[in-house]
């Protein structure tokens, strides 16, 4: 007969690299200089891809496109921590993740141009096509993690979603499933503060998103999503825990969407300029550059080379995309079922 505490939790936040390029040595993950340069180069490449995609869209050469600008550290920092054998289930805004995983860039452009061939994922990559319905990729990742555990494969499954995605039923059902079966999975939320025009505060009343993990009996942590080292460290530890049978982890990458939601959106309608100004100073690439400069890993010339190389790679990808033979209309029938139905065979004659 009493009122007594029976359970309690604490949610932590991880920060390693600050805006001035200083790091907390005690927390710095073991990354070689060449690793750090690779990461830097991937950030630049992703940003180049992003700028190119935006201008292609303006020119009507691809369709609606969601920019990743501002979220590069969350995407590259997490994807860089994965092994080739791990499985990845992105949402629709993970171009930086795809690029880090080595997804052919010309295929990404092909997809955004409205061509299914863009997501005929190469056989040597364990990633899923991007997922348009918010949050619905989470159950897929959970299922793949269940299958991997069942097979005894020592891999981790990673799935990405946004702050808005945390409101969907599939987020809940997937997280709960992962907790019950202690699955080898890492849930990465890019909390970019906005779901189109809905702010993080209007999306959920919980102070952090990370704390939602405790509702399912596993750990959640918030990391500075504009700090590539924090994201890398948290992800690395989580995937190793997963592979080792330690169960799921939820990582909230606290970041910001610098652009409009997509090229079809106009963010000036709903969010204050000041907010964007504030986040400009937190730019993930900028702080990494300052850090590298201090470490003697960065020079104007190196930067120029990296940019030129990125531009070459991306332009080449655009060329490859736009010189691709057109998609065969028959494909819409061919890839609906394993074999054509009698009705489809009749219908194909129309084409």
């Amino acid at each position, binding site marked *: 007969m009493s009122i007594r505490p029976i359970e309690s939790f604490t949610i932590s936040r991880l920060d390693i690299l600050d805006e001035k390029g200083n790091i907390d040595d005690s927390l710095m993950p073991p990354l070689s200089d060449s690793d750090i340069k690779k990461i830097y180069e991937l950030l630049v490449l992703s940003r180049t891809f992003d700028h190119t995609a935006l201008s292609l869209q303006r020119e009507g050469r691809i*369709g*609606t496109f969601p920019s990743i600008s501002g979220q590069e550290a969350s995407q590259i920092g997490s994807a860089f921590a994965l092994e080739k054998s791990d499985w990845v289930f992105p949402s*629709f805004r993970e171009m930086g993740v795809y690029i880090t995983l080595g997804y052919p860039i010309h295929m990404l452009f092909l*997809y955004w*141009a*409205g*061509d*299914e061939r863009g997501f005929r994922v190469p056989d040597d990559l364990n990633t899923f096509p991007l997922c*348009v*319905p*918010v*949050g619905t990729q989470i159950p897929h990742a959970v299922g793949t993690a269940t299958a991997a555990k069942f097979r005894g494969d020592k891999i981790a499954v990673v799935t990405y979603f946004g702050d*808005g*995605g945390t*409101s*969907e*039923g*599939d987020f809940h059902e997937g997280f709960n499933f992962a907790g019950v079966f202690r699955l080898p999975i890492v849930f990465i939320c890019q909390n970019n503060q906005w*779901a*189109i*025009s*809905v702010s993080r505060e*209007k*999306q*959920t009343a919980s102070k952090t998103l990370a704390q939602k993990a405790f509702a399912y009996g596993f750990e959640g942590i918030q990391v500075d999503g504009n700090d590539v080292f924090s994201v890398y460290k948290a992800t690395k530890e989580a995937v190793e825990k997963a592979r080792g049978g330690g169960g799921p982890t939820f990582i909230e990458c606290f970041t910001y969407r610098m652009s409009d939601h997509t090229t*079809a*959106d106009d963010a000036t*309608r*709903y969010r204050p300029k000041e907010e964007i100004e504030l986040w400009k100073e937190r730019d993930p690439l900028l702080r990494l550059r300052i850090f590298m400069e201090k470490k003697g890993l960065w020079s104007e010339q190196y930067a120029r080379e990296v940019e030129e190389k990125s531009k070459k790679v991306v332009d080449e990808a655009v060329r490859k995309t736009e010189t691709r033979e*057109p*998609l065969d*209309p028959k*494909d*819409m*029938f061919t*890839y*609906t079922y394993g074999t054509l*139905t009698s*009705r*489809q065979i009749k*219908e194909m004659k*129309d*084409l």
Partner: protein
Amino acid sequence: MPKFNMVQAINLALKEEMQRDKNVVVLGEDVGVDGGVFRVTEGLLEQFGPERIIDTPLSESVIVGSAIGMAVYGLRPVAEIQFMGFIYPAIDQIFSHAARIRARSHGRYSCPIVVRTPYGGGVKALELHSESTEALFCHMQGIKVVAPSTPYFAKGLLISSIRDPDPVIFLEATRLYRLFREDVPEGEYTIPLGKARIVQEGSEVTVIAWGSMLHRVLQAAGPDAEIIDLMTLNPFDEETIYQSVKKTGRVVIVHEAPKTCGLGAEISASIAEEMILYLKAPIMRVTAYDAVVPLPKLEDYYIPSVDRIKKAIEEVKKY
């Protein structure tokens, strides 16, 4: 009279109904400060405030489910699902509850909600942004389904839907949102649910369509075709169709959903059951193909073209 496109006409209907009845509230993703991703609810937040124009979290099931709870309490909620491809997570609330509350409570409760959603293709959108699965909702009894084809009818049908005592799925063809303007009177007028309209009288063939497909039919059909805009897809206006079939003896039904189990099947089957003795030719359906909705590059091959509609009309006229 002011000329409005469909976005403006729907916006006007919402505004006028909200002015008329303080129980009318709007909820959905981005309907408030953003004015809706298609701007259909633009200006409503400023005029009616956040308690009547509710920006919700990203949760389709609770958008519809909470609309049901609001209706039970006496409100007239108009829920927006951002695209028809995202109504599926809310289907359980629509099928298991909105459709059944009247029956379950033997009439104590009803569910006067409207679920507005942009549907259909023709705008080269992303995956799941071009769904046209109206037939699913027509099959589930207890729900009404409406699909306007012009700004004028959009306004009148939406007003009727908001005032209707039953749940209405209100399908707005994305393709038509800004395609053209027409005279839309300010102030109240209603277009009755359950009634089709004859857009063009004709004697040789009856062509039935709705939403954006109606406009392709208008391009494809000759002066001898009787063109019917179904407008309410469930319950649909059997009488108008039967009367027309009596006259023409030939039928072509056009929709942008895949053929198998599309609404065209029901219309055709109803005619085959009631009017077969008047038929001079096979009942033809011109529909999207039995395939997964493709991405933009193949969209034009997938959705019925003016050409395919023409061919079908010529085909039945051969009999």
